């Protein structure tokens, strides 16, 4: 299992004839993603890497039954591309493009609110449901099948964390980058809710950074709604206030959005925060072991019947996972074939 994308996901690539679009369309296809079509206005009828190109998303959806769109078009046209995808009726829109004006994004968000569609990004690396489907630009070679969900506001930092997990023999269900902008379609709490509901996900790694209060909201959400263990990382402890740290959304302004606040909020909610991405695997192992123990204890005690119900399934699956966890140790040296 996984969240948002899986084997039945049918992807249309907006901007498929561009440099990034064509490269990643091929990479996605290689990973096993069902890329059913591409869109570049005026280039309909051609193909890219064997993928048929259409003039519009609605045409592509009509002819291919695509349910997901991924956007690689340049920033000046990307806002329009999101509207086009939404109007064409896809259920999931992933905008990889960086540099969309925040004010435009506020209008986009207002437009999609209440509609049966989810936007991920913009300015994000996309997502991978391991061994099923990859949409976006994440390197498929660093992930490994397992039971940890990863959600992050970053790109390469996410790869670093995923690679640390994989190297330690800890596999993932879905890894998702939600984007480094101020206004994004999907926030931490949306993804955390999905991971909580996904039976295959047993624990979650959440990678935040300075700027905004999303991590604080997520901490509250975890405390209130999640039974699965969460481990955190916050980037930007050394960032000076008032300076944009690469990402449009990574800025401490008016005293809010500091790393200290976020770390404190997470820790207060019982989420341990790693000092280095490389420390995440050990923390996840510890948390998962503790959760397993706790649940076994709960199962034995009939007094906690309500909670034990939830615990039943995870306990069983965790046991089934063991062999795969061992197997990954061998693949620890797979670094050389990373993409």
């Amino acid at each position, binding site marked *: 299992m996984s969240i948002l994308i899986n084997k039945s996901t049918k992807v249309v690539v907006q901007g498929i004839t561009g440099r990034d679009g064509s490269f990643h369309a091929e990479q996605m296809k290689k990973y096993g993603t069902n890329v059913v079509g591409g869109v570049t206005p005026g280039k309909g009828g051609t193909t890219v890497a064997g993928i048929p190109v259409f003039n519009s998303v609605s045409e592509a959806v009509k002819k291919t039954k695509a349910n997901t769109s991924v956007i690689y078009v340049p920033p000046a046209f990307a806002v329009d591309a999101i509207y086009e995808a939404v109007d064409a009726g896809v259920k999931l829109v992933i905008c990889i493009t960086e540099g969309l004006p*925040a004010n435009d994004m506020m209008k986009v968000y207002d437009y999609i609110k209440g509609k049966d569609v989810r936007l991920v990004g913009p300015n994000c690396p996309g997502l991978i449901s391991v061994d099923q489907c990859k949409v976006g630009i994440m390197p498929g070679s660093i992930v490994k099948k397992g039971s940890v969900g990863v959600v992050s506001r970053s790109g390469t930092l996410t790869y670093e964390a995923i690679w640390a997990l994989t190297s330690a023999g800890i596999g993932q269900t879905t890894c998702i980058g939600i984007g480094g902008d101020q206004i994004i379609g999907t926030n931490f709490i949306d993804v955390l809710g999905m991971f909580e509901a996904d039976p295959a996900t047993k624990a979650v790694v959440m990678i935040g950074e300075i700027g905004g209060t999303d991590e604080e909201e997520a901490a509250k959400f975890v405390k209130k709604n999640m039974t699965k263990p969460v481990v955190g990382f916050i980037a930007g402890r050394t960032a000076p206030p008032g300076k944009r740290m690469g990402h449009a959304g990574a800025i401490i302004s008016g005293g809010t959005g500091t790393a200290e606040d976020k770390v404190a909020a997470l820790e207060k909610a019982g989420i341990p925060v790693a000092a280095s991405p490389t420390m995440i695997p050990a923390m996840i192992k510890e948390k998962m072991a503790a959760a397993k123990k706790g649940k076994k204890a709960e199962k034995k005690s009939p007094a906690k019947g309500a909670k034990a119900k939830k615990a039943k399934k995870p306990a069983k699956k965790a046991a089934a996972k063991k062999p795969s966890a061992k197997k990954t140790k061998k693949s620890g040296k797979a670094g050389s074939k990373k993409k």
Partner: protein
Amino acid sequence: MKVHEYQAKTIFEKAGIPVPPGGVAETVADAVALAEQYARPVMVKSQVHVGGRGKAGGVKYAENVEAARVWAQKILGMDIKGLTVKKVLVTEAVDIVSESYVGIVIDRASKKPVIMVSPAGGIDIEEVAAKTPEKIMKYAVNPTHGLRGFEAWQLAAFLYRDPKQIRQAADIIQKLYGIYWAVDASLVEINPLITTPDGKVVAIDAKLNIDDNGLYRQREIAGMRDLDSEDASEVEAREADLSFVNLTGHIGCIVNGAGLAMATMDLVKHYGGDPANFLDIGGSSNPQKVLTAMRIILRDKNVRSILINIFGGITRCDDVANGIVMAYEELKPEIPIVVRLTGTNEDKAKQILKKVNLESADTLDNVVKKAIKLAEVVV
């Protein structure tokens, strides 16, 4: 991007928001000429991109032309929080009865533009929010249909009792909201918005920040960028399409990706070092970018070692390696450099790097520790 007060006031004026007459001067003579032209008391205001100009002595009241000369002399060339004042705004002084605050910012949580008003103007709005939050009214505007007349009126009515002043303020708020959208602002602020003894509502200060992502369609605004008031290295980095922020430490950092760049800096601190900068070379790994990055960092005399941390996804490690070799041969750095390249084309990269004699490390933690150690040796 930040816009100076005098530039923002021009935009305000064009939109019909009342501001006192004023002009910008780069020399004392020009400032005096402006004061003579207005023939009444003026304010001499330093134009630098930093808060707290008044407290730093960069905003002064001049009773007459002679006083204006004295203040212009003092303020031009003055250092305010590390920035040299190169321009002053000379503007007619107005009598103030009351001071309010009006601001519009992006609210990330509601994903809407939020208008904030407060009758406690003239001081930092964060201070008001912390001490007397009841004196602030916040309103999230629906970005699609925009600010309606009655909404602007209600905000204005939080500031004033007099219907005439409410009407003037509502009109100003409405126009300010129009500016916010027209120029792709991320923040627009009037602090203070004042009332005069004859009942007029006037904006005597103006702050305007523009969303960098909107600059591609804001030619006029983009032309207002004052390169003099920015860190020279940051300007050079931006022109080379690098994200760079100057810091005070002595370990130079070159990283791909903003999140990883921050995490690398944090780790330098965690292991007892002090990062000299934030630098993200971005996704596409043009060797030229690495060269520029290295040149910028080497110019910083505080830097005692450089760490290069690349996690190749889209970025190809061999491209970065070529950039490193190019930079090494061209710049001949005298300080130690330690490199960690992992991911796409890592093996090719290692072959390329054999051409130069550099330290290397295999993991994130190790590259950081090594860079710190090498920085100590240099001392």
